[in-house]
């Protein structure tokens, strides 16, 4: 098969993996090819609006497993292809030298056995690093069930590793991916996390200790292929950040790829749910929120109409409005509409002179939503005779109602919601 045809098939098969980030690593160009850029660089944006930073491909889409939600499952009748390590090396180097990409994101279905596949992946990254002296970014997917020694050895060559959780609950995993064991996912995550910690300490003590997965590990969960609540997913997310110190958890709205009795029959991917999860994930990581502040057993799903922070603020309206010249940084972060950048700028600017409403605009704070929750020098700039229903009405706005079929949180056509998520993903990490 021609290289071009392989690339078509194996890029197409890799596209459901959300991550394309090239951030978190400071690899230098050591008389070879390339380096990494700490905050990551997007090189293009595909027709779905997602950032293209890495050459994201599968090594093969032949698979011995039969995961119901996956397009590559053995029982699916599709075109199949397998790269050779040299082909991938050649593509990566030539794309990189033309500045198409930041590096490689290599994943794979399972050919013959987990170990056999993992060895092929390892061979590929070794070639890149050792033979070609390639110092660009490499993100490698861990094959569930592969020998821990192989995984550890891969960790020495790559910038980022990921083990995909795929399905939030064990029961679903049994139902939809019968050959995958929970342990084969959780175990390597724990091992990688421990090794990273160990190496960090080594690096602190000895200057030239070798690197291990400098950009950390990430994972991905499919949203909407099972009956998990948002609460379940968010709780699991919190555990993954705390226990395994993951760099990122990605969510992927389930794109219907098969008609399996155990899968829901939906016509479009649940993009709004995915969007809300990203918003909440952001709140966990950078805004000091805990999962149980946003969702709890009597409220297991996100509000369809409101972003999680606004939703939280309305439930805690007794804390507002806050005075912009006095509120702590932590509290500013909890004001709907204020991001990290805005909160920081407020804290800096108010040291010089106390801020009025116009000042806020001038320093670049967007007040569209924030104005309902703040005062400036004691003055409130929201509507007169304000009450919580009024604020809710204003926040939701007319256009939101038009865009959503309100009865179903999942069947939503959306243009303007999705963008901000992706932009954040790209710019901040």
């Amino acid at each position: 098969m021609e290289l071009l045809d392989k690339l078509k098939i194996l890029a197409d098969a890799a596209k459901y993996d959300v991550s394309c980030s090239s951030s978190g690593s400071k690899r230098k160009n050591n008389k070879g090819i390339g380096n990494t850029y700490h905050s990551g660089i997007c090189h293009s944006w595909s027709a779905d609006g997602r950032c293209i930073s890495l050459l994201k491909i599968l090594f093969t889409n032949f698979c011995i497993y039969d995961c119901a939600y996956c397009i590559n499952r053995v029982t699916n009748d599709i075109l199949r292809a397998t790269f050779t390590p040299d082909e991938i090396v050649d593509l990566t180097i030539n794309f990189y030298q033309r500045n198409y990409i930041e590096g490689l994101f290599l994943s794979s279905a399972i050919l013959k056995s987990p170990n056999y596949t993992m060895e092929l992946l390892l061979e590929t990254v070794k070639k890149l690093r050792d033979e070609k002296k390639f110092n660009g970014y490499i993100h490698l997917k861990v094959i569930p069930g592969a020998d821990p020694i192989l995984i550890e050895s891969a960790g020495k060559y790559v910038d980022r590793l990921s083990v995909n959780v795929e399905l939030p609950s064990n029961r679903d995993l049994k139902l939809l991916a019968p050959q995958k064991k929970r342990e084969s996912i959780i175990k390597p995550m724990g091992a990688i996390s421990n090794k990273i910690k160990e190496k960090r300490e080594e690096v602190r003590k000895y200057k030239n200790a070798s690197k291990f997965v400098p950009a950390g590990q990430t994972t991905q969960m499919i949203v909407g292929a099972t009956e998990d609540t948002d609460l379940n997913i968010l709780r699991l997310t919190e555990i993954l950040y705390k226990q395994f110190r993951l760099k990122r958890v990605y969510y992927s709205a389930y794109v219907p790829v098969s008609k399996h009795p155990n899968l829901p029959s939906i016509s479009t991917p649940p993009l709004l749910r995915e969007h809300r999860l990203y918003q909440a994930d952001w709140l966990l990581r950078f805004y000091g929120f805990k999962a149980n502040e946003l969702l709890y057993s009597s409220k297991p799903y996100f509000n369809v109409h409101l972003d999680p922070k606004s939703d939280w603020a309305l439930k805690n309206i007794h804390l507002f409005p806050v005075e912009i010249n006095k509120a702590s940084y932590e509290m500013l972060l909890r004001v709907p509409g204020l991001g990290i950048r805005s909160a920081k700028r407020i804290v800096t600017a108010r040291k010089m002179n106390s801020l009025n409403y116009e000042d806020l605009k001038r320093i670049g704070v967007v007040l569209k939503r924030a104005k309902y929750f703040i005062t400036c020098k004691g003055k409130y700039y929201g509507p007169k005779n304000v009450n919580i229903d009024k604020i809710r009405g204003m926040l939701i706005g007319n256009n939101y109602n038009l865009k959503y079929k309100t009865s179903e949180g999942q069947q939503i056509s959306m243009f303007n919601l999705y963008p901000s998520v992706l932009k954040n993903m790209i710019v901040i990490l």
Partner: protein
Amino acid sequence: MIYYIYDGSFDGLLTAIYESYYRRENPVKIFAENDFQQNLFIPKVHIKTHKKKAERVYNSIREKVSRNALRNIFYAYLSELPNVGTWIYDYIKLGFKVKEDIDKYLSDKRVSKIHKIAQRVRHERHLILGLIRFKKLENNIYYSQIEPKYNIIGLVSPHFAKRFSDQYWIIHDVKRKIGSIYNKKEWIIKDISSIKEAIKYDKNELLYQKLWVEYFINIAIKDRINPKLQMKNMPKRYWGYLTEKAYNSKEGVRTCKL
């Protein structure tokens, strides 16, 4: 009321700032020659660029104000906006007064103006780091054309000098007719008003262009097509030089005629 006119160079702008302090004048506006529109009723002073004077201003900004302020000024200058000379002058006057605290006065118009412009230049610089597309030529030179809004080739060159330290490369700003040229040791910016020889691709160049284009097409999820989002992240004005957007199957990406 008085206007200062400088030659458009960064040194020229700094010289103008020097003169205003030296002559104890308060020019209302500082313009680059090209941006200046005649106004008969306002007295003008033509500033002659003077390296030493520029250097003194440069050093005193760095030492008495801050490195950060100097960077902001330089980035803002590269925006080439017609009024930017005046805005920089206003900003730095405040800077000499409040010293290293200048960039904390976020609610001051003079500061927020410069920050906003510098930020836009910084944003484009970052975007261009990703959007530059090199084409490998017959003689092993990796050649790229761009038409950035702001004058940023000097800002992106250090990145590529580190990253592609072992490649000959040229980044050609077609709009400004200048190019950054790297010889595996150092990069310099030169005028490129015309290229005499025809540009010939390396024999494998078209193959990789084609592979990249196919990759680009196949990595998109069809159920999620979102052209608005794509355009928001990657404005159309850059598409003309993007391999994946400007590709045509016979000749690949044509380079702009000069």
